[in-house]
Each structure stands twice: as structure tokens, then as C-alpha cells.
């Protein structure tokens, strides 16, 4: 379970997260929507400890992420994250990209890491691209590779930060299909997205971020069907 308790975070004088309270159950799919600069990406990078927080607590299965004694490198094995920008390791083949962390972080033997990598790459539909360098992949394929790379660490949680935002429209579908598949398989996920149809379809709950505050959260039916706050009503009517 991911528990976020009254988390505050500033960049200089700009307060980006103004006391966020949120929990995500095992197996739950939470999507997060909200305007640009509302703090969505920042929250995700705080959850796996890439960014420090100013106050509050984030607990991953009871372990406090930002506590002094926490081994972040160890903790991050539990949490996969995929970013908006494609960030393949360009000097490694697709297979090597996916094998790197299992080999070097989990110290898996080569055969085991390779079997896992092939399995995950096949799972996201890249089984025929194993020996190719990432520069030869389309944006959608690069994102699916990034997803496979995260999955190869057998994470318990997956965080997705607008993974389709940098893609050409015709490539969005294949990546969303991959996310749908993960959701069906019971992966615990937080997806930041602008794809409302997707959010409505896969989410157990949807959260709306507005200026560093979580303004509204609820199951998709009521969230989209009967938004309570004026901000969300405005946001939804602007994006439809």
C-alpha cells in the first residue's frame, strides 16, 4: 500500500505540493489528472524518492520513503516508473536495456535476466526487437520498452507519468493498451494522464490535482458524472 500523508514540497519559493493526503491499495489503479504545473509529476518522483519532500510522510508498505535510514536503491526495486520523455539507454540494445537493472541491481545470472527480459518484452509486443538499438524504435515502441524495463524488476507498484503525451496520436493506442493489460493483471498503478477516456475505463479511482492540492478524488462514475468542485467541472468541460 502507498500512503501519502500531508506531503508538502517546494521548489525555492514555489510550493508545488500543498499537503497531499492519498492512499493507494494493493491492486488498485489510480489515475491522476490536472492542469499543467499542478504537481502531478512531482508527486510521482517523491513517491520513489527521486525528489525529497519538505514535510509529511510517504509510506510504501509501511516503509517511510524519506526517512534517514531508508535504502532508496532497495526501495526503488519495488516501484517502477515510466516517464513522459522516452529515456532508453541508447548504447544498449532493447534486450540489454531491459536486462541491465536485473543484472546489476538484483545480481541475477545472465540466463535468468535474459529470460525475464524476453518475457517482458514479448508481453509488451516487442518480442521481435530484442537485438535492435532503441534509435530504431518508434516513440510508442520506446515507451513500451521502458515499461518492460520497469516490469523486469518485478515491481509491486508502477507509476506512469503521462507516458503517451510525447507520442504521435496514432501511437497512443498501443501504449494505452499495454497499460490496460497491466491493470487487468492486477498491477497496482498510479497513472498521470490526459487521456480521459482511458482514465474512465481503467481506474478504480480518479484524482484531480489543482495548484498543488488534491481537489477531488472518487470512482470514475461519480468523478466524471457528478464532479463536485467548480475547478474539476471547469477542467472537465475544458478538456472535453
Amino acid at each position, binding site marked *: 500500500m502507498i500512503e501519502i500523508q500531508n506531503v508538502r514540497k517546494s521548489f525555492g519559493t514555489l510550493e508545488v505540493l500543498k499537503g497531499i493526503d492519498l492512499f493507494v491499495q494493493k491492486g488498485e489503479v489510480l489515475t491522476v489528472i490536472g492542469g499543467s504545473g499542478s504537481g502531478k509529476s512531482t508527486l510521482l518522483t517523491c513517491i520513489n524518492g527521486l525528489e525529497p519532500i519538505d514535510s509529511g510522510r510517504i509510506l510504501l508498505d509501511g516503509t517511510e520513503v524519506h526517512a534517514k535510514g531508508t535504502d532508496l536503491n532497495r526501495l526503488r526495486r519495488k516501484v517502477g516508473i515510466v516517464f513522459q520523455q522516452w529515456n532508453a539507454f541508447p548504447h544498449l540494445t532493447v534486450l540489454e536495456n531491459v536486462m541491465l537493472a536485473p543484472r546489476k541491481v538484483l545480481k541475477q545470472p545472465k540466463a535468468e535476466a535474459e529470460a525475464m527480459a524476453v518475457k517482458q518484452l514479448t508481453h509488451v509486443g516487442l518480442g521481435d526487437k530484442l537485438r535492435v538499438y532503441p534509435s530504431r524504435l518508434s516513440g510508442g515502441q520506446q515507451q513500451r520498452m521502458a515499461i518492460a524495463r*520497469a516490469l523486469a524488476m518485478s515491481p509491486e507498484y508502477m507509476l506512469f507519468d503521462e507516458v503517451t503525451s510525447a507520442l504521435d496520436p496514432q501511437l497512443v493506442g498501443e501504449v494505452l493498451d499495454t497499460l490496460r493489460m497491466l491493470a487487468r493483471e492486477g498491477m497496482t498503478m498510479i497513472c498521470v494522464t490526459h487521456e480521459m477516456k482511458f482514465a474512465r475505463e481503467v481506474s478504480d479511482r480518479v484524482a484531480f490535482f489543482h495548484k498543488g492540492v488534491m481537489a477531488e478524488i472518487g470512482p470514475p462514475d461519480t468523478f466524471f458524472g457528478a464532479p463536485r468542485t467548480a475547478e474539476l467541472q471547469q477542467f472537465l468541460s475544458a478538456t472535453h
Partner: protein
Amino acid sequence: MFDTALSWNDMIFLAQGAGMTLMVTAVAVLAGTVMGIVFGVLRYQLGTWWSLPLTFVLDIFRSVPLLIQLVLGNAFQAIARLGWEPFTTSCVILSLYTAAYCTEIVRGGIEAVPPTTRRAARSLGLTWWGDMRYIVAPLATRVSLPAWIGLTLGVLKDSALVLWLGLIELLRASQILVTRLQEPLFILMICGAIYFLLSFPIARLGGYLEKRWSPHD
């Protein structure tokens, strides 16, 4: 074929000079690169402000002419009673000179690795060291290679200045022969050809590596 007084023994003398040039260059490039990597990572890690003292020292080595550095370095080692041979002094000064340039090359290479790529590496659980070793080092090496090859070729030629400390390297050996045989054009042509033969494989190695790595990005 040529009407020359140059004998086989003179050619061996030139070859020994070339050997000295190669030796001094190899030591300087090796030690300078190792120091350059350490200083470059330090400069990157510490940021502009904290690495100011280091930057300042390295700037001295980059801006003072090498000849002056060699002469002053030799004088200092004598004053400090270090008892260094001219070869040692030459290698130390040339290494620092190389390190000063290499530091900037390394820092530039590290900076060229996109932060988002490194963040992705760290989020997979790689440590700082793992990220450096498996992501930053290979990518920065690719970016830095042309500049590093240029530096190596430069040091090979600049190493001629160690003749001022009395080392008989390739250029000094040629000078000696010119004085004795009075055939400056012919001997300098041979000397130049030897420099070319020393440089060519290095330049080609660079070209080869660049080509080998190019399909990767």
C-alpha cells in the same frame, strides 16, 4: 636513391627519439586522462562554486604556455630538492597539462548525458556508482572521444617541448642530425613523416571507434 649522408645509425638515433616522444606522450596521456576523469567527475559533482579552487588551478595549466610550465617546473623541483630526472619532470608537467584539458572534456561529456536518462537509471534502483559506470561512462565516452583524440594528438606534438629540459625526443634528435649533416629539409621531412606515422594510428583508432559506436544513437 637520395644523395644523403644519413646513415642507418642516424635512423636508429631518430627512432630512439621517436621512442622518447612516444614514451612521454603515453605517460602524459595515461596519467592525464586518469586525473582528468577524477577531476572532471569532481567538477561536475561539486558544481561551479565548490570546484572553483580546482578550476582555478587547472585554468593555470591551460593558459600558461607549456614551455614556461616545463622550465618553471624544472626550476621548482630543483629548489624543492626533489631530485627529479628531466624525464620525470617532463612527465609530471605534461600529465598535469593534459589533465587540465581532459577535465573539461570529461565534464562536457558527463553534461551531455540527458538528466532524464540518468533519472531513469536511478529509478530502476541503480546506485550513483551504477549509473556512472553503466550509463554515464559509456555515453560520455562516445561524446568525448573526438575531443580526447584531438588532445592526444596535440600532446604528442607538444611533447617536443621537453627538449628544453634536455630530453632527446624526436624533434631534438632531428635537430642534432641537422646540425651535424646540414641537410635540414630532408631530415625534417623524415621527422615530420615519423610524427605522422605516430599520429595516424591514433586518429584512425578514433575514427574506427566513432564508426563502431554510431549505430547506437
